[in-house]
């Protein structure tokens, strides 16, 4: 208990460091191109948080990243480097959109819940194969989950170009989901919707789960030291399998809320790489609920502010991409440390 405050401080610094570094890199770039870094950042900040509608926009943009960050963290905790959340997000989104437009007659809230549930289910099922391969056959999940992303995106694009294509559409998109299946908006007319609350609830559940002996603690122990975990009677393979599948469930649920809450269907360009940004969110947030939330909010703010600020100021999208890229690059430093430890642990595990 006594070291809780320094640890929180250390976490905070680790989280803040990449962003401070990114802002520095960005300001050098701005200065070179003859712009004033301070006023530029002030405009970005104002566009991200200046007033209720801007905050709502930032929270909306953060919502998919809460899910993908959390999904990634669940796996990371168990020592599983799942980089396949993007695939679960895609397929979960498509599955939910399909229920949303095709299951006519189910009615209102029930249809919405069915769509959410089906999205989560499909996201979880998608991770069954790499989970099983990792848990039982010790096949490296980094390779399998990364490859499965391409397959998931291929399947989704094929479906949305064929059986699920909206009639009359010139680009790859499903029909719009029925109005009753859309997630309710929290502060109309802003796009902030119940998906954000579902994301927060998932973080809370995750936080509680972490403190449970059966579940969170086992999960963590397996991640830290599988050999020790096995010696105290924990079924390492089932913990690993559960972690990967749960990760897929959350990723699929994220896709479902994105389809039902923001986009209103599945279409080409459904995710600009939320699953991959989620990896950075989990790494920066040290797999902790509050850290994930903060990480998602920062990336969300960059996305929403970085887009609409172009209406008012000559701030190119490139700047935002440099900021995002720098943060992600520094998050990888964390990943490398993590991977080293993981290799060391796996080397001693039988």
């Amino acid at each position: 208990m006594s070291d809780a405050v320094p640890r929180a401080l250390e976490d905070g610094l680790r989280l803040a460091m990449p962003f401070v570094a990114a802002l520095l890199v960005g300001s050098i770039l701005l200065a070179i191109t003859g712009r004033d870094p301070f006023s530029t950042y002030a405009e970005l900040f104002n566009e991200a948080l200046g007033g209720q509608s801007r905050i709502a926009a930032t929270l909306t943009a953060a919502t998919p990243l809460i899910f993908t960050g959390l999904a990634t963290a669940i796996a990371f905790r168990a020592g599983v480097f799942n980089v396949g959340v993007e695939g679960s997000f895609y397929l979960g989104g498509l599955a939910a959109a399909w229920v949303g437009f095709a299951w006519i007659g189910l009615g209102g809230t029930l249809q919405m819940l069915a769509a959410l549930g089906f999205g989560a289910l499909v996201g979880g099922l998608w991770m069954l194969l790499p989970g099983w391969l990792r848990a039982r056959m010790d096949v490296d999940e980094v390779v399998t989950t990364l490859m499965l992303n391409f397959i998931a995106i291929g399947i989704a694009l094929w479906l949305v170009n064929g059986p699920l294509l909206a009639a009359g559409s010139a680009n790859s998109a499903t029909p719009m989901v029925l109005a009753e299946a859309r997630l309710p908006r929290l502060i109309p007319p802003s796009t902030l919707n119940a998906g954000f609350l579902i994301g927060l609830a998932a973080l809370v559940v995750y936080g509680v789960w972490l403190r449970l002996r059966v579940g969170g603690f086992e999960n963590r122990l397996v991640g830290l030291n599988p050999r020790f975990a096995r010696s105290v009677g924990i079924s390492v393979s089932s913990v690993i399998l559960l972690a990967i599948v749960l990760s897929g469930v959350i990723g699929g649920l994220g896709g479902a809320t994105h389809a039902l809450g923001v986009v209103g269907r599945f279409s080409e360009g459904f995710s600009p790489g939320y699953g991959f940004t989620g990896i950075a969110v989990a790494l920066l947030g040290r797999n902790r609920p509050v850290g994930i939330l903060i990480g998602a909010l920062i990336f969300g703010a960059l996305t929403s502010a970085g887009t609409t600020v172009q209406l008012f100021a000559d701030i190119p999208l490139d700047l935002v991409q440099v900021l995002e890229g720098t943060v992600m690059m520094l998050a990888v430093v964390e990943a490398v440390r993590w991977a080293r430890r993981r290799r060391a642990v796996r080397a001693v595990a039988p």
Partner: protein
Amino acid sequence: MLKPVLIAGAAALALSATGAAFAQDPVALVIAQGGLGDQSYNDLAHQGFMAATEETGVEGRVLESRDVVAQGEQILRRAAESDFGLVVDLEYAHGEVMEAVAPDYPDTEFVVLNQVREGDNITSVLFSEHEGSYLAGALAAMVTTNTDIPGINEDANIGVIGGTRSVGIDKFLVGFVQGAREINPDVQVQVAYANTFGDPATGQQMAEAMFENGADIVYQVAGGTGLGVIQAAEAAGHYAIGVDTDQDGLAPGHVLTSMIKRVDVAVADVVEAYAGGSLEGGQVRNYSLADNGVGLSEMIHTRDLLPADYLARIDELRDGIIAGDIVVVNVIEDGYPDFFQ
């Protein structure tokens, strides 16, 4: 209610001359997926937008987003709430969102491309891609049996690759096939869909397969995927036909022609009409062969390979379409014809 309007180039010029007389709110251009630098749709629209804002003196802002699909509603509302008078949105996926958002902001005009959206303050811009594609098909059918032209075999066999199987893309394909059949009713047209607009490798493989099956000219209607079609044509010594912009220079001598959509003209026109105070919502502006809104490229790299009577025949067909003597099937309005099911 939607009523079609015909656009004359001269009208646009006249409007721009009076544009300075009106005090105007700023205008915004929303860039579609693929982003600036695509050497195609976005870049062309951007050119038209920049030229028109410069000419009319209206303040113009260009918005790009890596997450443009999800940001759509946010962008449209933010622009309208910030007193933008005109928002030209290039992103196809924003159509429904625009229809939902526009009624909340009656003082802002919205423009959507390649689809028709209802709303008193929504202007829909369409292109008669079927007409331009018809000319491309006719030219391909003439060339494909002329073995005097390098890289051409004797088979009456050509191909077309669509980005996705949808009426919006089939509008091009059907026009192309109809034009080819006009020249040679027995021509064989291989049709395939890539299911993606962003994968040149797929486009290349599909074009190679068509060349192996006897085709010597392949029309690409597949955006970035189509760049692979052009690469395949260059590598195999055959021909591609470009789309949207003048792609003849991407592989000089191996792009027979390009079916150009003047997105730049369309975007410039709406900005100029807005600046001149004459942009009325609730209308469909159609750009056809007659307005030079669509058409074949200048063919600067291939023109010398072709017999003069081919080009004369193309001009004849073009005049016939403009005069209404030739009716090209528009699958969006007319449904699918018997020769293309």
